[in-house]
């Protein structure tokens, strides 16, 4: 599902964010991606979403060489991935409902299906009652859950999350992780970047640690 082969990523005029990283994640697997700030977690997620292209090496996701996708293919690739961004990237001038429905509109689904799936996604993160509210009227935790609802609404084959519980209290963080794991139960592959070690210990799963742009460790719970 995910395979990185000796991937190096150097930003223009900057240091190497990733250095000869090789790893793979199997379909239906739930994996944590950990490491301190600047370890390369966000860069790896950007490579998977085709936001950046690797300087060297190859990135495969959903059976495609992501680094070589043409523009049109990048669009369809992104529609198959659910991404939870660190800063949520919600549209402030649209309601919670419209934010979550956006990926479905982009995918060209009919109004009935859009409504059904959007309400289901909002319900799954406990925000159905806040559907008509605008993001600025939601708490940070609610905004984060809204970002998650938007990431899962399109039933992605691959779910990638960058610090999805950064603004949530421990209880809610566990709920969100349980939601991710429930999706994995339906066949979704999930890669969750987090530095919340307490959360990882309470819900153990495979854990890939990055340090200074390299894979430091790759462990699975016994």
């Amino acid at each position, binding site marked *: 599902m995910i395979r990185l082969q000796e991937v190096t990523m150097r930003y223009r005029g900057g240091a190497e964010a990733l250095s000869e990283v090789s790893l793979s994640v199997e379909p239906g697997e739930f994996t944590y991606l950990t490491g301190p700030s600047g370890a390369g977690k966000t860069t790896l997620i950007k490579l998977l*979403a085709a*936001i950046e292209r690797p300087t060297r090496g190859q990135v495969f996701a959903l059976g495609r060489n992501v680094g070589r996708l043409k*523009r*049109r293919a990048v*669009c*369809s*690739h*992104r*529609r*198959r991935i659910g*991404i939870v*961004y660190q800063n949520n*990237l*919600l*549209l402030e*001038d649209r309601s919670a409902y419209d934010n979550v429905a*956006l*990926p479905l509109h*982009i*995918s*060209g689904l*009919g109004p009935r299906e859009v409504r059904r799936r959007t309400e289901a996604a909002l319900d799954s993160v406990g925000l159905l009652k806040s559907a008509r509210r605008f993001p600025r009227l939601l708490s940070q935790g609610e905004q984060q859950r809204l970002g998650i609802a*938007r990431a899962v609404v399109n039933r992605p084959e691959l779910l990638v999350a960058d610090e999805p519980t950064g603004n949530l209290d421990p209880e809610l963080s566990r709920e969100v992780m349980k939601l991710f794991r429930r999706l994995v139960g339906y066949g979704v592959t999930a890669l969750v970047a987090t530095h919340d070690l307490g959360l990882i210990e309470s819900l153990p799963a495979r854990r890939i640690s990055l340090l200074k742009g390299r894979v430091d460790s790759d462990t699975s719970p016994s």
Partner: protein
Amino acid sequence: MNPLRYLGRHLDCCYSEAVRLVRQPLGSLLTVAAIGLALALPAGLSAVLQNMEGLAAAWGEARSFSIYLKPNASVAVAEQLAGDLERNPAVGEVRRISPGEALAIMEGRGEFAPAIETLEENPLPWTLIVAPAPGASESEFLALQDTAATLEEVDQVRADTQWLQRMSAILALAGQAMLLILVMVLVALVVIIGNTVRLEIQRQRDAVEVMSLLGASRGYLRRPFLYQGFWYGLGGGLLAVLLVRLGLWTLGGPFADLMALYESDRVLSGASWRQDLVILGIGALTGWLGAWRAVAGQLRTIE
């Protein structure tokens, strides 16, 4: 994608953009006003030119010439010549005016009456007014005039059509100038609308970025801005139509007064619904093109 669903998405986007523009009335109206005024200039000129061309054509159709026979020419000579002319296919009608009738006409015009009273005998000759047959060519009719002038019994031939030729030339020049103005106005509109849409894209830059990250195609990202340009252009076109109609209505009275001086009951013709559609179409198309130009550049920058 299902074609019906694709069409539905376009209609939905088109409607949403219209609603959005209505919700920002001041900014939208200013843009629409600028477009409308710019479009009204060539559209109005075109309408005036069409009226002038119609007038010239109507006057051109009445391009008859007068044949004045020699003073001593008899009725028989006049009838013979009139008959010969009537048999010519380029001639539609020959009106005969006897010296007596001509004198009566002049007496009818008050200013000549005192002078006529002093005359011992009628000095006016037989006059034949020759009108062209419908569809007779200009050259054919001019040749007939030349031939008539060489006849022994003819004193002189008069046809005052030079001013019509000059007017036609001026109208042709004005037509070319109008086209040039139209092209310049359209280029200016593409720039104005492009700039308005570019500012709107900048304002919505974050949303465009997010949608791009969610997998939106260029077509999807482009669509609302294209419809925005479309509505601006269509609104401007509608305003231009109203301005042209208002202008023609305002000029209608003075035009009728002018025509009365030429003993004509011709009225200023208004713009037809076809012309209105052309103005609306040009406005909408220009808006769309302006938006396309802006969107193409901006999306590349954002992506």
